[in-house]
């Protein structure tokens, strides 16, 4: 199969892929993720959230833009940096935050934690802690759609660090061999924990990593929700048409450390400041919205609503009781 990896250059103004209302909804989703993650960071600092906690701040446009390309019945799966994906899928912020605090009101009743939440109802399949494992699983979600001969699509997210795992390429091969409807999405935030992509990947253009398997791909400005949606629509349409998988490299950036315990000494403060100042996905969406005529009052109301929503989630997560000790022995096997 001939491959024509098309590219959208970073900074180039993408085709307008959302109207005013849709962009406003996308902005609201991104803002919810940002405020939720800021609150999670606070709760972590207060000792209410423990263990690993990987914040999505900076990358919001990726998952929100992609979510606007899919519908009911499509599947989403990702790694441990998963809070944003869950909120974008429509999962209840209360349940997500309560899982972070390890309470019975959490999505996994306190037994999964930050990295392990699921919602079959919302099409969210986790939440996986082994770097790269979710890529094969995501191929399996696509496989189930292929097996059932429906037109659903699996969105399979992973970082540029995971993109060096062998099973990622095994999955690329299987997916294009069997023409499975999977959009593989590399969230290239440039750092796999402390190792920059240049120090980890001999491949200098990750969007070309599917070429040996004949997978079409796009490199996308992952800081621009409009660009993400435009590329995502193309990828999803390709899958729904039965043409097999599609690879998207989202060029993005995380503002916080890899996890809460990462001081992020491997990059300069100036680099982070520059990204925040010049490429923030919320700022650019807000600017578009203003051009489209959204009023300051509307924005202010959204801000206030979301702050309240997040505070409610934080309150719920602290008020929800810890799981009953009997929960220790449940859910090990079905029917036992």
């Amino acid at each position, binding site marked *: 199969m001939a491959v024509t990896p098309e590219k959208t250059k970073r900074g180039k103004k993408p085709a307008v892929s959302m109207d005013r209302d849709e962009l406003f909804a996308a902005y609201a989703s991104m803002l919810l993720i940002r405020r939720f993650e800021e609150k999670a960071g606070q709760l972590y600092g207060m000792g209410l959230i423990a263990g690993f906690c990987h914040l999505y701040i900076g990358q919001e446009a990726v998952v929100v833009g992609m979510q606007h390309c899919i519908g009911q019945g499509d*599947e989403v*799966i990702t790694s441990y940096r998963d809070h944003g994906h869950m909120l974008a899928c429509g999962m209840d912020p209360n349940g997500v935050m309560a899982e972070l605090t390890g309470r019975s009101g*959490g*999505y*996994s*009743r*306190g*037994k*999964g934690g930050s990295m*392990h*939440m*699921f*919602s*079959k109802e919302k099409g969210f*399949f*986790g*939440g*996986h*802690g*082994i770097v790269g*494992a979710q*890529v*094969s*699983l*995501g*191929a*399996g*979600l696509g*496989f*189930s759609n292929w*097996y059932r001969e429906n037109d659903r699509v699996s969105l399979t997210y992973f970082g540029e660090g995971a993109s060096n795992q*062998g*099973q990622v*390429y*095994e*999955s690329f*091969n*299987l997916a294009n*061999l069997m023409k499975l409807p999977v959009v593989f999405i590399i969230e290239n935030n440039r750092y796999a924990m402390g190792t920059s992509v240049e120090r980890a990947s001999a491949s200098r253009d990750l969007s070309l990593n599917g070429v040996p398997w004949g997978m079409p791909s796009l490199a996308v400005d992952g800081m621009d929700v409009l660009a993400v949606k435009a590329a995502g629509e193309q990828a999803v349409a390709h899958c729904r048409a039965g043409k097999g998988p599609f690879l998207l490299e989202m060029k993005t950036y995380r503002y916080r450390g890899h996890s809460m315990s990462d001081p992020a000494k491997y990059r300069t403060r100036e680099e982070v400041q520059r990204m925040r100042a010049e490429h923030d996905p919320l700022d650019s969406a807000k600017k578009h919205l203003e051009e489209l005529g959204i009023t300051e009052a509307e924005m202010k109301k959204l801000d206030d609503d979301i702050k309240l929503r997040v505070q409610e989630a934080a309150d719920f997560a602290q008020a929800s009781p810890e799981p009953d000790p009997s929960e220790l022995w*449940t*859910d*090990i*096997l*079905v*029917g036992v």
Partner: protein
Amino acid sequence: MATDILMPALSPTMTSGKLSKWLKQPGDTVKSGDVLAEIETDKATMEVEAVDEGVLSKIVVPEGTEGVAVNAVIAVLNADEASTAPAAPAAPAAAAPVAAMPAAPAVAKPVAAPQNLSEPAWGETKPTTVREALREGMVLEMRADADVFLMGEEVAQYQGAYKISQGMLDEFGPRRVIDTPITEHGFTGMAVGAAMNGLKPIVEFMTFNFAMQAIDQIINSAAKTLYMSGGQMGCPIVFRGPNGAAARVGAQHSQCYASWYAHCPGLKVVAPWSAADAKGLMRAAIRDPNPVIFLENEILYGQTFDCPVSEDFILPIGKAKIERAGSDVTIIAFSIMVDVAMKAAEALAEQGISAEVINLRTIRPLDIETIIASVKKTSRVVSVEEGWPFAGIGSEICMTVVEHCFDWLDAPPVRVAGLDVPMPYAANLEKLALPQPSWVVDAVKKLF
């Protein structure tokens, strides 16, 4: 000068085969590399090429003969008319020199069905190989449930590396019997993802040794997700394939993984011995809503047992079977070691010791009840496993007995296990590394 042409061994476990077709007839001139005959092994039909040159003077074994032992003379080559080739007494293809290997028994003897403790009320039985029983188990479940499918290396077009899935592609088509590339990590993860989305995959590993490439997906994804999701996301999947030593395949193809998988909560682990075990447990494993590790044994594939023919026949996971009743000692084994235990029990009976043999069938969850009831009766226990002793299933059985019926014991529990070494290739060394009936007999006698 005449050269004998011998029945070649064409697979590591082949002891006999069917001479399906002669492609040369007496009087034909044979050149080195010519195809002489077609031979059907337990895995495939193979062509036998001539090594020596000459004129085929006599066919000893006519075509269509079944159960021809490896190294039996199948034809004679009269080398007199060959101008150049030296008439070395070499066997064709992979066969070893005549003197080096004694002829194996013509056919693997059907193991006698346990006399007194057969399955309850399953009615009519028929002689069935373990291979057929595994296939029947899968086929019956696939007919009953469209969500069940089989995937793995060579399962479809090749008809199975060990012919377990023979004919299944024809019946179920390529969407349900799926050849994968050699990519264990990838296709295992893919199958686990499909199971999380409600399908019921059967994943065949060509051997469980290769499943080590995929063990992260088996443990971290398949076994743990139900718990991590608070019960939301189950994984109804069967991982199956040959486990443990075959014959002369060396250290990387001869490991028993029973204790590896049995260690992990979230998995069930079964290890059938007989054809009935294989069929009944296969059906149960496929119906089970949890991930099940199904440990088969290559040497058992060709062995014949009486197996119930009932359409409803199924065995419960988690229940052991007393294969032979006895009163003086309990011998606990699984998979091919049940055979070793039964032979040991026979030998012990001749020496006046009555041994009870428990076929575990399921490793996890372990049927503690059956073990304890037996040990309370006999007051002595010996475990037999092919895998290594350290942290093995024998260790678990010993601890279980000590915890539950220490006061009934007349002697410390003893374990018989494979030697604590990577499996050697040499025939004599391999034999020394694997438990023999005499090891079990010796272990038992130390208890008195």
